[in-house]
C-alpha cells in the first residue's frame, strides 16, 4: 500500500505541475484546457476546411477519414501549412489536381452570429 500511495502522490504532483506550467505536449499530464481560451463578444470564428479540386474543376469537401487528419489537427498545424503549402501534397490522392486549405469565417458582433460567411485561402497545392 505504501508503494501505491507513493506512486499515486507522484502522479498527483505530475498532473498538478502539468496544470500549472505544462502544455499539451506533456500528455497525459498536460493542462485540461478543453475550451479554456476566451473570445471577445465581437470577433471572428474560423473553421478550417480542406477541399480537393477534380480535373474538371469540381470542389469536394474532404472529410477527416479521406486524409487521415481531423479538422482540429489541420487547425493545430495551420501555421505549418501556411509556411510550407507543399505539405498539402501529402494529403492529395490521384483524384484531385489541387488541394486547398481554406478557413470559413463567421463574424460575431456583440454575441450575435452574423448571417454571412466568407472563405479565405490559407494554402494550396497544385499537382
Amino acid at each position, binding site marked *: 500500500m505504501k508503494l501505491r500511495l507513493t506512486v499515486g502522490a507522484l502522479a498527483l504532483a505530475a498532473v498538478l505541475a502539468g496544470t500549472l506550467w505544462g502544455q499539451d*505536449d506533456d500528455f*497525459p499530464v*498536460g493542462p485540461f484546457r478543453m475550451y479554456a481560451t476566451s473570445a471577445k463578444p465581437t470577433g471572428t470564428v474560423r473553421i478550417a476546411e480542406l477541399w480537393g479540386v477534380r480535373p474538371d474543376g469540381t470542389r469536394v469537401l474532404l472529410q477527416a477519414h479521406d486524409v487521415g487528419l481531423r479538422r482540429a489537427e489541420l487547425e493545430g498545424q495551420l501555421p505549418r501549412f501556411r509556411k510550407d503549402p507543399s505539405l498539402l501534397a501529402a494529403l492529395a490522392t490521384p483524384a484531385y489536381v489541387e488541394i486547398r486549405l481554406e478557413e470559413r469565417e463567421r463574424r460575431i458582433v456583440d454575441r450575435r452570429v452574423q448571417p454571412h460567411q466568407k472563405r479565405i485561402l490559407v494554402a494550396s497545392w497544385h499537382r
Partner: protein
Amino acid sequence: MASVTAEPMVQRVLWLRRLVYAFVWVDVLVLTPWVRDHGHVPRDLYRPLLLERVLHLPAPTPRLVGVVLVALLASSAVAAVGRAPRLAGVAVFALYLEWMFIAFSYGKVDHDRFTFLVALAVLPTVDHLRRDTAVFAVRAVQVAAVLTYLLSVYAKHRFGGGLETWLDSTTLLRAVVRRGTFIGDVLAHQPWMLHVAQYLVVGMEMASPLLLVPGRVGKAMLAAVVAFHLATFATVTILFLPHVVCLTAFLPLEKIELGPFRMRRRGATVPEGVV
C-alpha cells in the same frame, strides 16, 4: 486459481474492470476510427509528444498501428473476462498509452483520457483478496475524475486570460458556431443562455469535489455532472465518453445482480473463474 471476496468494493472493481476493458473495444473500433487512419498520414505531419521523444517511440506506420490495434484488443478482451488481470492489465495500459500517442501526435491532443488512463493504471494493482487495494483503485479513479473538472477551472484561468474573462467570453457560442447541432443552433440565437451556461459549467466544475461525499450530496453532484455531459453532447456533439465510463466508479456497481455475475454473500470466497 485466484480467488475473490464478496466484499462490495472488490465487487465494484470487478464490474469496473469489465466495463473499462470492454470499453476499449468500443473506443478503438467505434468511437475513434480516425486513430487508425494516422498510420497512413505522411511522416512530415507527425509531431511526437514529449514522452514519445524521450522514449524514442517509432513514428506510426500502417503496420505499427495494426500490431498495436490487434494486441490492444486481444489484451483488453483477456483482461475484461478477468484472466491474468495483472499481466493483461499492464499490457492494456501500455498499449492504450501507445494508442493515445498515435492519436494525439498530429496537432491535436484531446483532454478526456486522464481518468481512463488512471483506471487502466490502477486496475492491474488490485488484489482480489485485499479490500484495501480495491478501495485504493476505486478512490484513485474517483479522484482522477474530480481532478479533471477541478483543474480545468484553473486551465480556463490560465489560458483564458483570467477566470472572470473566460466567464464573460463567447467560448461556448463559438463552439456552437463551429460544430453546433440543431439544439446548439437554436441556442446560438439566444446567446445569453450560452453566456449563463459558462457560469454554470464553472460552478459545476468547482463543486465537483462533492462527488466524493457519500450519500445524497454525492448522488446529486453525479446527476449534475451527467447532465453537463448530456448537454455538451446535445449542443456540440462532444462526449467525453472514456471519462464518463469512469464515472461509474461512483455508482454502487456491486449491487448489480445479473445471472452468472450474481453477487456472492458478504464474506464468502468463490473461485475467480465462477464470478
